[in-house]
């Protein structure tokens, strides 16, 4: 069942839309061995820094390396957890505050694997994927985002 070997298109230009998420959920309704989905969404915050507010993040990536990294993270998750499906999408380019930049979607027969895998994927992506974020303020000045 697991679509482990298909190459995956992780990067999306601009924000990830709620419609894309809905289409992805709907696509899984034919997979009737699934009992639990977990979805993580990263949303750009309008953080305030020294009185200025972030209006968008511009994402860039070392794309070839990032795609390899995502592939390895996916493979390791399929080894660790009993998953039916796994999907990862990340934005490139501008994503405005309030919009979604990361969509991680795990599906399993039972909730524990779906939830454990989703958390694992999010942590691995934040730590290992060579993706960079330029936080752009309302006055067009910027600073570079760093994951903790």
């Amino acid at each position: 069942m697991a679509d482990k070997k298909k190459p995956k298109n992780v990067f999306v230009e601009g924000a990830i839309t709620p419609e894309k998420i809905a289409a992805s959920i709907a696509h899984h309704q034919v997979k009737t061995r699934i009992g639990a989905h977990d979805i993580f969404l990263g949303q750009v915050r309008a953080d305030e820094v020294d009185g200025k507010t972030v209006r968008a993040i511009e994402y860039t990536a070392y794309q070839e390396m990032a795609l390899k990294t995502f592939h390895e993270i996916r493979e390791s998750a399929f080894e660790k957890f009993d998953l039916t499906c796994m999907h990862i999408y990340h934005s490139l380019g501008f994503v405005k505050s309030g919009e979604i930049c990361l969509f991680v979607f795990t599906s399993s027969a039972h909730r524990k694997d779906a939830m454990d895998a989703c958390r694992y994927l999010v942590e691995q992506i934040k730590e290992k994927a060579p993706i960079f974020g330029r936080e752009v303020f309302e006055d067009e000045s910027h600073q570079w985002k760093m994951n903790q």
Partner: protein
Amino acid sequence: MTVTVLYFAQIAEKIGVNREQFELKDSVNTADLVSILKDKYPQITEQKFKIAVNQLLLQGEKELEDGAEIALLPPFAGG
């Protein structure tokens, strides 16, 4: 040997270059290359970064081979 060096995000911004090639002596390893780069671009001396060689994150040091692709990666910000 010839290697390609890629710069990303705040590093590319600071030095105004995304990508360039270097002709190096065959004995040069990654630590030597970093010294060369910091000499050429003193504005990155204080910058925190990781190094990838041929799209694999480097642990420690590594001998370089002809045609290698070296990337200077500032802190990640995905998600």
